[in-house]
């Protein structure tokens, strides 16, 4: 293969030599300006690896930013809606951040390396937003996306794989904790985090160690049902886990062309991350407080349990009177749950007070013809699947 990379539209990740070799379908996906694998073998097998053994996914395209300075912690606490004033070294927090109107810019994870140094990992480009937000804080903010090779290692046997790989005593690491390891002479940051709803870890290292790391991991997992996973399977596991995705379940304020498409945290089920009682001001606090006090929240993001087995991709949701009350943002026939599930954005009071008597209109392709299905559905908790092993300490070891 001879591609002139300067002329290519997309960048390769540091794992490309390995992922492209493992990718038997030649099925690719565009992710934030990078080429990543959509499907290595078949999506079902990759999905099962996460629920049965261990899946390995190339996470490099996630944007990562480094925030350094004396007021770094104060800034982070001002930047996100969650109260992080007590955040400890070597921990990770799931957060969202808003604009002045109290609409969500993005969600992501904050890594506290020490009290003066943090990293933020998220799905949308955030450098200018971070820099403009940090005006007046005198901080050092850098885009380190290209400086970090990241892998997600997820599944019931993932702890064992990583122990074989060299991460001693990893089983004692609690969810949302991170730790530095030196393996084969290079350093790896391992955090117990993930986007699959299962036991799992994320690994960060310098790109020059990427291929070595990939090879060692595959070797360490060879008896533990390890398998690389592509983007299609990730979409399945994240829906089961009820995780939301920027650009799918809501539009980032930085990308929304139409102001009405912007969503407040309360409208995407992230109200639990908004700490209005936080002592200091945070971006969007005034607007969010007003929204809460005036009850002006218009929408809600819920889980749906839909009758039948035809996934409701992009379906419109109706009430009894056949009025349009919302839309399905992500849908899946769950292989593990054997349920027809979906994440949906509904106009209140549908989804909050009214949880039954709503319908989805599914157009299901059947041999070149679409069959229109009118299915009843029930509003349920968005977290459809969360096995006990996910949060167990010490983690399960095989």
């Amino acid at each position, binding site marked *: 293969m001879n591609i002139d990379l*300067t*002329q*290519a*539209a*997309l*960048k390769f990740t540091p794992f490309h030599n390995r992922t492209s070799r493992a990718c038997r379908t030649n099925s690719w996906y*565009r992710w934030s*300006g990078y080429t990543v694998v959509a499907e290595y073998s078949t999506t079902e097998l990759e999905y099962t690896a996460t629920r049965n053994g261990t899946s390995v996914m190339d996470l490099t395209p996630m944007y990562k930013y480094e925030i350094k300075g004396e007021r770094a912690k104060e800034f982070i606490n001002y930047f996100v809606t969650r109260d992080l004033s007590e955040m400890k070294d070597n921990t990770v927090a799931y957060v969202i951040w808003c604009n002045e*109107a109290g609409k969500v810019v993005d969600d992501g994870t904050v890594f506290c390396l020490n009290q003066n140094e943090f990293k933020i990992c998220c799905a949308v*480009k955030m*450098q*200018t937003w971070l*820099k403009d937000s940090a005006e007046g804080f005198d901080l050092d903010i850098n*885009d380190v996306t290209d400086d970090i090779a990241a892998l997600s290692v997820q599944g019931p046997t993932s702890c064992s794989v990583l122990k074989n790989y060299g991460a001693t005593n990893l089983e004692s690491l609690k969810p949302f904790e991170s730790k530095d390891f030196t393996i084969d002479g290079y350093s790896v940051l391992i955090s117990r985090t993930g986007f699959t709803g299962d036991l799992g870890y994320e690994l960060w290292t310098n790109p020059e160690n990427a291929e070595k790391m990939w090879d060692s991991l595959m070797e360490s997992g060879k008896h533990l049902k390890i398998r690389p996973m592509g983007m299609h399977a990730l979409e399945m596991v994240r829906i089961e886990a009820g995780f939301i995705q920027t650009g799918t379940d809501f539009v980032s304020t*930085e*990308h*929304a*062309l*139409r*102001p*009405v*498409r912007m969503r407040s945290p309360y409208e995407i089920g992230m109200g639990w991350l908004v700490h209005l009682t936080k002592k200091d001001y945070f971006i969007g606090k005034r607007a969010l407080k007003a929204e809460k006090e005036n009850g002006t929240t218009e929408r809600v993001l819920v889980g749906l349990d839909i009758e039948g087995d035809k996934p409701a991709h992009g379906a419109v949701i109706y009430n009894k009177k056949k009025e349009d009350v919302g839309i399905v943002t992500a849908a899946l026939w769950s292989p593990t749950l054997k349920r027809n599930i979906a994440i949906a954005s509904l106009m209140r009071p549908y989804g909050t007070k009214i949880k039954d008597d709503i319908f989805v209109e599914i157009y299901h392709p059947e041999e070149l013809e679409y069959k229109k299905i009118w299915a009843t559905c029930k509003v349920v908790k968005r977290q459809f699947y969360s096995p006990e092993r996910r949060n167990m300490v010490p983690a399960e070891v095989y």
Partner: protein
Amino acid sequence: MTKKIYDAIVVGAGHNGLTAASYMAKAGLDVLVLEKNDYIGGAAVSRELFPGWKYSNCSYVCSLLRPEIMRDLELYKYGLQIIPYEGSATMMKNGDYYAHYHDHDMTVKSISRHSKHDAEAYDRYSRDVMRQCKIIKPLLKMTPPDLTSFKPKDILGALEFAKHFAAKDELGGLGEKEIYDTIRFYTMSIADYLDEYFETDITKAHLAGSAIIGTALGPCSPGSAYVLLHHYMGEVDGSIGSWGYARGGMGSITKAMGECLKSHGGTIQASSEVTNVIVKNGRAVGVATLNGDEFYAKKVVSNLDVKRTFLKITDESDLQPDFVERVKNFKIRGSSGKLNIALEGLPTFPSIPKDDPGGNGDLHFTETIEEMEGAYDDWKRGQWSKMPYVDMCLPSKSDPTMAAPGKHFMSVFIQYVPFELANGGWNEQRKQDFGNHIINRIAEYSPDFKDLIAHYEVRTPKDIHDEVGLTEGNIFQGELTMDQLMFNRPITGYAQYRAPIKDLYMCSSSTHPGGGVMGAPGANAAREILSDMNIKQKGNHY
């Protein structure tokens, strides 16, 4: 024998005149179009000025032409095909280049070679400009309301204009903040606007080009951000802001319109320069031409710019002095020139890698806003810019019909060139000096360029003024500044395509929404004329 009375006569066979004529003919009117030149098309022409090469020697690229018009007039039937640009690039003195591409990821990757910050800010910038495009798009097909009128029709029109801003469907309901952003966007300079997003000179210079093309504003002049929007609000197949070539040169647009007109029974008569509008009892009843012919019609529509319409072909005695003064004060400033070049082969531009799609679109070499503003300062002093902003393209790289295989046609648009030079008027010598100046500038970036020239044509604003008939050679038939836009265009109080003389109408780019081979003024004018005649148009989208 009494003379034939047409339903409508259109003066000038430019794209707006032909659009208006076609819509009227389609609605069943008997239409005559009179053109002074021996070819039709006005500023949208393809001419074989040198055997074997087609020259889009006036306008050269297409984006603003409203898709609704192409649809209503079925221009595809008459051979119109638009070819999208692959990219664009600015060449740098240090041998590097800055490029944008049809593919968004590729553009971002390319910008980040110069600045990561700018690459990221480009997303937000695109979103904000796109939002402005969405706001303005529906306004293009509206007749601006007369804000001073208390007639129900005008009040409804004004409400329609206002309602549009709050409409939820197209724009998703603008909030307070977005409305303020809009006000700011319309009044700011492009330099200030770009400063809010970008940090590097090259990014700003590359983007600012669109804000000065064709205008007598510099990048630092307030109001130049709007001009950028004017160049962005076009579309090629729904891809807003993209530009493309008309296959066969810009003349294929007017050729297709002409064919459409003829197929609906309209007549075009070339080499017939209209010298005056015949007014009887306060009504326009026809026109007289240079060779003494007179043509009569129920409606007379002028596709000439507002100055020519009222100061040249209308008797001043038929107009109020106050109106005449306003027309005189209407600003049409020549600020652009052109070089049209037939090339024996493809010139190389060493700073752009071979096969880079960025090289297949518009090429520039202005690296800073300061340089651009300096070019403007030269113009203000009555000189052509020493370091002009240049918009070069080689349509023959994408369009096989422009020149024989391996040969190329190059269109070079130059900003700024004054209509009148400070040290006396244009003459053949000065024109050649100007042409050589530009050729030398290009040769600095392309070593083999000069050797490949088979033939070239230099066009100063004066030439465009004399030959095409655009006053002062202004490509928009009137400056695009706040005082001459929307309900101020062309003359406040006369923005509804009707002249102060009954049965005389305007359909040129001097009217809303302005120039740029858009066709919208023509289509809007036709709609007003037909509505005055109580004729319903059927099945049109405009």
